[in-house]
């Protein structure tokens, strides 16, 4: 439990941050990041609406609405005309939608800021909502859900299946893009109503960074003040049901290799001292796309089983495409995740055992003093690479405002100095476990895998190439490592049936 003094301090920080950014009754809020040496100006217009606001049966509505603002015509210009105006500036704007927030983003050279701002505000204030644009976006999303999500990137699919399982029956419990059935049911009127409800002056914060003139901020504020007043009703925090033992969903699909994702909810957010302690432990266990990751070392480096193996203590968007986490996907409910990149189909059970065994090993033994010192030193420098640009720094500032905390990345650097090995090992025991987890696997012959999993059958590993004796000896232990998965906790789903609800 936090001390009373710390709690008060956090409340004060939260209040100060809130005053710094949130909308007051007399106008739109702003988050400013002046960078006089940056010749560009970056915009992140934050609307406090996300896929958690999708009405039941209309999942995907927040994303579709954002697309109809950021990639469609306005009352003044068709989308084609907008593209032609933006093109010579090499500028663009777009939208990112996560569970809790929608951010309209844009970046332009200061030479062109006035023309760009005009287009951007017009898009937010006066979207045309034409049937033609709506049809284009709706068809694109439907095609993505029908043809791409489940059929062209098994890693992304596996992750989405994991999130779906962890957050089932909560507002977080569907892909941001929606479901094949729900998107088909969305009408243009749904989009208009959603826009009028959520794109209000009381629900927006202007994020602006770079070499901007203060008058630009006032101009934007005045413009967005023209949005309808009001603050929409808040969505209750997603509180997922904790897993009961190991619960697995096996997607039966003709695959050449198998994607595996493992996870469970954790009640831990940025700003909490334990978050930074667990960050150190997690970095050692599974630093994203980094050979310092212990899981990577065990599964890829020593055994050559796949391309990489990582772990996370908060949502990491599009991990297959990014080296560092993108901002503006903050959440009130987080989760722990292990991502095992595709392994040969026949190695699935072994890889699963290896990863869970390593996690349990960390819980049982804690970090060593040497690993703690090395990882802490690594992170202190590594976080400096997280937000090198004005645009990313602005994104992180918005996330700080969401969490009501001071600068997260600076806090991290300080925390890494202040935390002790005991802090880290205490956090590991408090938040990590292997008894109650969700697992999503995309694989061929899922029924056979189910039988192997529920019988805890040995899964001896064979290699095409020689391995050192110590690896082969350890393999014997991994191959019989008990997972204790109950038959009723394993569901096999044909790929064509996934997300079809």
């Amino acid at each position, binding site marked *: 439990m936090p001390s009373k003094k710390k709690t008060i301090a956090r409340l004060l920080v939260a209040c100060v941050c809130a005053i710094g950014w949130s909308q007051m009754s007399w106008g739109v809020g702003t988050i400013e990041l002046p960078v006089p040496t940056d010749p560009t100006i970056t915009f992140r217009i934050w609307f406090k609406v996300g896929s958690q606001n999708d009405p039941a049966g209309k999942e995907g509505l927040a994303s579709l609405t954002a697309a109809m603002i950021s990639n469609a015509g306005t009352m003044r210009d*068709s989308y084609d005309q907008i593209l032609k105006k933006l093109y010579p500036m090499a500028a663009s704007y777009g939208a990112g939608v996560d569970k809790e927030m929608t951010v309209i983003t844009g970046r332009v050279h200061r030479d062109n800021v006035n023309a760009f701002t005009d287009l951007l505000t017009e898009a937010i204030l006066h979207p045309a909502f034409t049937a033609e644009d709506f049809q284009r976006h709706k068809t*694109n999303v439907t095609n993505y859900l029908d043809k791409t999500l*489940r059929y*062209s990137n098994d890693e992304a699919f596996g992750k989405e299946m994991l999130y779906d399982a962890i957050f089932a029956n909560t507002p977080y419990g569907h892909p941001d893009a929606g479901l094949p059935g729900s998107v088909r049911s969305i009408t243009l009127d749904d989009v208009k109503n959603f826009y009028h409800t959520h794109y209000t002056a009381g629900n927006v914060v202007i994020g602006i960074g770079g070499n901007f003139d203060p008058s630009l901020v006032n101009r934007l504020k005045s413009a967005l003040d023209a949005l309808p007043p009001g603050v929409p009703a808040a969505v209750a925090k997603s509180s997922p049901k904790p897993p009961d033992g190991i619960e697995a969903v096996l997607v039966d699909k003709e695959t*050449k290799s198998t994607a595996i994702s493992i996870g469970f909810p954790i009640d831990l957010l940025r700003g909490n001292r334990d978050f930074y302690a667990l960050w150190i432990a997690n970095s050692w266990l599974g630093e994203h796309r980094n050979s*310092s990751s212990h899981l990577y070392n065990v599964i890829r480096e020593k055994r*050559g089983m*796949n*391309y990489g193996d990582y772990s996370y203590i908060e949502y990491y968007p599009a991990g297959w495409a990014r080296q560092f986490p993108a901002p503006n996907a903050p959440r009130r409910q987080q989760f722990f995740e292990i991502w095992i990149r595709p392994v040969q189909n026949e190695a699935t059970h072994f890889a699963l055992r290896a990863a869970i065994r390593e996690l349990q090993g960390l819980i049982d033994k804690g970090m060593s003093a040497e690993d703690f010192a090395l990882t802490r030193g690594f992170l202190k420098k590594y976080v400096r690479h997280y937000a090198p640009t004005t645009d990313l720094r602005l994104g992180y500032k918005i996330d700080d405002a969401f969490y009501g905390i001071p600068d997260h990345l600076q806090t991290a650097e300080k925390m890494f100095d202040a935390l002790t090995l005991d802090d880290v090992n205490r956090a590991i025991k408090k938040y990590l476990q292997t008894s109650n987890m969700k697992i999503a696997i995309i694989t061929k012959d899922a029924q056979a895998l189910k039988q192997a999993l529920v019988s805890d059958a040995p899964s001896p590993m064979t290699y095409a190439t020689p391995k050192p004796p110590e690896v082969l000896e350890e393999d014997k232990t991994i191959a019989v490592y008990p997972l204790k998965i109950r038959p009723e906790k394993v569901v096999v789903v044909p790929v064509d049936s996934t997300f079809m609800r």
Partner: protein
Amino acid sequence: MRRWWVALALVAVYLGIGATVAKATEKIFPYAYQQTVLDNGLTVILIPMESPGIVAYYSIVRTGSRDEYEPGHSGFAHFFEHMMFRGTKKYPGPVYDKMMTSMGADANAFTSSDITCYHLEVTTDDLEKVMELESDRFQNLSYEEDAFKTEAGAVRGEYLKSLSSPGFVLRETLLNTAFDRHTYKHTTIGFGQDVEAMPTMYEYSKSFFNRYYRPENVVLLIVGDIKPDPTLALVKKYYSAWQKGYVPPQVPTEPEQTTARHAEASFQGRTLPIMAIAYKSPGFDPDNITLAACQLLGDLAFGETSDIYKKLVLEQQRVQYLRPGFGPSRDPGLMSIYTMVKDSADLSAVEEEIYRTIEQYQTTPPDEARLKDVKSAIRYSFLMGLDTPGHVAGNLNYLLAIGGSMDVVDRMYAALDRVTAKDVMDAAKTVLAKDKRTVVLVEGR
């Protein structure tokens, strides 16, 4: 040793792109840089810029899958990228990894058809240590056969992962169909059978390293919070002992294509039909007006502001996307148009629409105002991507790999500026010729 300073008129005016656009004939690259060629042939490019405490360190090997000319060895450049992380006798892989970890380095590598690039972002304090480590592994790489075979397993995993993407199947089929002899025939990861055979190629891997990982074939690019002279002194300290010995690959010349080609491939999963229409294009030459005109032509004819984009994507909505891939390659390569068609029944109509667009550009010069817009967009896009050391190095590395020297940057953009509407029409006629065309279609189940 050759050495020169390039002090540009626009040094202080990364802040002033407008001026650059207005005076289109001026050099585009806004930072001062120092380029030096050491006695052993290593090209060193140092670009100081404001970036408190951060340095981007790029070792650019001018070898990619293009250099895999020996049958049965496709995919080796990429595989070798993996092996470079296995360390040396002085700093074995685990020690190298631990030192990188202690530095908090953002370290990675990538391979394409023309380049293998090892890139790090580190703090300035760690620059000398990084230089010691990187120079050591480029000169003294050492790994055992078992480690080599284990890494082959990781590469196989990467190959299998790629197969779950219809885009990869399209690319693999396109290259295999369009090229007969040149090594662009295979993708960077290699032919499947060659990837399977990699574990048996230990001895070959050492030969690959000895021939290609030589100073004459490498550009060392360091950008960020550095002082050029002391940095160059460090480079000399750590790299001067690296011995020459580059053996150029015997990359076969592709015979001239004389008839149009067509291929279809099936994707085991679901996908909307994807089509590539590609034409043989000239190899990289920064001064080549035809090549420059092609780069503009791609955006003019098939970019987001083109008439066909408006018609097929926005109005008729018959395609999910339409995009040009008209960038340069070191050797004669492909200029490609990619599209995803929503209904198979529309494939022929979409294909014909693309041909009609090409015919239009072959017979009518583009509108001057649009040509100006494309030039403006290309320049702003380049300059806006130079805001951090990592972005500067990220934007330069490919040009340096195919051009070998910083001057190609300004020369290429100068050529883009010189392109006239007639040049665009002439390029459309000579490059987008029917006989040099390859069409590939991928459909799902």
